[in-house]
């Protein structure tokens, strides 16, 4: 029995709506889906911001937020209130329309990618058959947001930051796309759900281990490329505070600034979620072939595994951020074009050979 027939893309709420309102279910279901996604995205941002500050606090031997609520749990709320009431200022000579449009774009990109994230068997808003292509296409919007923001600010440091980040994100997009292509080739499917289902079985059936010896390498390459794509330390050149004051968002205050960061934090979750989907078996539990343990692992629902793995990767991103210094722009570019890209092409070729010989999957 194929995996698609075993886990059809149905869910309880959707079925109920379909039986109650057979005529208008096609409009009610997407609305419910979108609302739940909005709730998820906004609560994720709060959780991630608190998490970042807690991780930073522990790594830097300080308390982190502790005052507002139990262990500072209400800190994101306080931050939100503060940011909303801050005055939004626009520099003299800035391009008004683009200046206010720019912060919206990265958030839109993040939200669009979230729509096809497979959280569980039945938790996915849409599953286009070209899901990977969709992600590659849509994530370009966040580059656009940063570029426009830096350009419209009428500030040389912002412009420098934006140009850096444009060059950086577009370069690493190439590597990221090639890694995704490798997984698409191996799994024979470009839909994210298809990719997750192709990793069904034991932990050794995940693409990180299944693709002989090279899965781990490509996983690490994905981590590097996605950190660069996320503009996070050690690749946070767009906002390098010691060189460019704050880079592309120097001139943004209040909610304009908040939206850039909102997007950055949720983007981190999206990247980690994609790593989970592509390499770590998505919502599958890490089965090891011993029936007692596997039975226990299977008790937990899929989305718990998905969120667990994703938050682990998020933690790794944070770990990078609080221990590494920042690279220089030319070093970053040579890393991409002289190391990651050739290595990726080599892996892709090897992957094709392995597929022909029947070694991979």
């Amino acid at each position, binding site marked *: 029995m194929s995996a698609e027939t075993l886990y059809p893309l149905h869910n309880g709420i959707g079925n109920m709506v379909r039986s109650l309102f057979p005529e208008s279910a096609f409009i009610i279901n997407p609305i419910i889906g979108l609302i739940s996604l909005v709730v998820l995205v906004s609560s994720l941002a709060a959780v991630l911001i608190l998490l970042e500050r807690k991780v930073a606090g522990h790594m830097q031997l*300080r308390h982190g937020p502790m005052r507002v609520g139990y262990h500072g749990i209400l800190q994101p709320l306080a931050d939100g209130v503060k940011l909303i009431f801050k005055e939004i200022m626009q520099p003299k000579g800035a391009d008004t329309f683009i200046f206010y449009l720019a912060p919206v774009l990265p958030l839109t990109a993040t939200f669009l990618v979230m729509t096809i994230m497979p959280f569980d068997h039945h938790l996915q808003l849409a599953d286009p058959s070209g899901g990977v292509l969709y992600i590659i296409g849509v994530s370009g919007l966040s580059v656009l947001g940063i570029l426009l923001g830096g350009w419209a600010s009428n500030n040389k440091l912002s412009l420098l930051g934006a140009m850096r980040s444009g060059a950086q994100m577009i370069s690493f997009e190439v590597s990221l796309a090639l890694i995704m292509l490798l997984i698409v080739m191996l799994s024979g499917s470009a839909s994210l759900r298809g990719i997750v289902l192709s990793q069904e079985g034991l932990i050794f059936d995940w693409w990180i281990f299944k693709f002989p010896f090279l899965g781990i390498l490509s996983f690490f390459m994905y981590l590097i490329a996605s950190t660069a794509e996320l503009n996070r330390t*050690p690749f946070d050149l767009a906002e390098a505070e*010691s*060189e460019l004051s704050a880079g592309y968002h120097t001139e943004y205050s209040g909610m304009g600034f908040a939206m850039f960061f909102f997007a950055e934090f949720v983007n981190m979750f999206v990247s980690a979620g994609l790593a989970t989907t592509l390499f770590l078996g998505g919502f599958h539990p890490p089965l090891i072939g011993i029936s007692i343990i596997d039975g226990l692992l299977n008790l937990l629902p899929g989305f718990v595994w998905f969120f667990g793995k994703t938050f682990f990767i998020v933690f790794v991103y944070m770990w990078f951020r*609080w*221990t*590494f*210094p*920042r690279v220089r722009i030319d*070093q970053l570019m040579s890393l991409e074009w002289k190391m990651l890209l050739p290595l990726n092409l080599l892996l892709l070729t090897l992957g094709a050979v392995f597929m022909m010989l029947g070694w991979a999957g």
Partner: protein
Amino acid sequence: MTTQSAEKYRLDGDTLPEGFRLPVSDNEDADEFFVNIGPQHPSTHGVLRIVVRLSGETVVEAVPHLGYIHRGIEKMAENQTYIQNIHLTDRLDYLSAFFNNLCFCMAVEQAMEIGVPERGEYIRVMICELQRLQSHLLWWGVMGMDLGAFTPFLYGFREREMITDIFEEMSGGRLTVNFFRPGGSAFDATENFIPRIKKFIKAMYKSLDEYNTLLSGNVIFLERTRGVGILTREEVLAYGCSGAVLRGSDVCYDVRKNDPYSIYDQFDFDIPTKTEGDSLARYQIKMEEMAQSLRILEQAVKKFPEGPYRSQPKAIYKLPKGSYYSQVETPRGILGTYIVSDGGTKPYRVKYRSPNFSNLSALNHAAQGLKLADLVTIMSSMDFVIPDMDK
């Protein structure tokens, strides 16, 4: 997009902003522009303004503009008695406040022919070496922060706090202290002094290893600093650099060894030098200096003598006519104090030879042709404290 600064700094013909010396580029398409680094910029600790002429992201020329925290300390010195002057000195380079006090006192001692009892000299050496560590700890953290790693900054403060507490107990001040006097120091060592230093030495050895694990061996850190901002032996000598900048370029000169003051000749310690002359060499020298300071402290703690901490001071200092010079090795290099006396209770003229001013003059040369990010690296590795170049 036009900005006011673009109007002011328009490259139409021969006009370049003040201070730039290289000619306007012949290339019509050259997209050179000017960027202000500072005064409020996060990597200009203190208030330094550097106007950088950039071509793309490559530094063509960097011109420091001074005077943003000018307080006229040398002029004020002429209206204060010698004792009152001591408390002006620690405002210069606030990270080596004790060294500045000491340097001024040594010039007065030289003029008045005052000796310092042994215990007083031990207190001086120990406090100065603690201050060197304190200053280097802050530098280490800031260097990490300028390279984008925020965590070292907070780690450095952990041990720095222990030293600052010792200073607070000794002198009442934590940053700008007014402690040394001609003939010794204002107060005797407290009973907690030696136990606290012992505790600190133990903690610091462990922390040094931790620092090396966190930053010194990091591959990104090495890539960012190796070969960046190279100054040759001839260049550092020509610019009058001192401290780690000098020793990083293979010139072994340290006032403590080459022109010993206080009781430094009684201690066994090494002066680290490197041949590369780049930012990494300067970094490694400063890290090694911390270990050497700990060595001095260990020896001093063992031999700390009893006795008077200050020779009998005179009520009013009236320096004989003439000029007097003293120099000490601060964490950043040679600090010199030059006093001209007309025989009165106040100096006729005071001049400080500050290490940062000379080191800053080499910045343009070191940064030319490198990236904007390298400018920050070089500034960090030279460890500028602005108030003393901006007297």
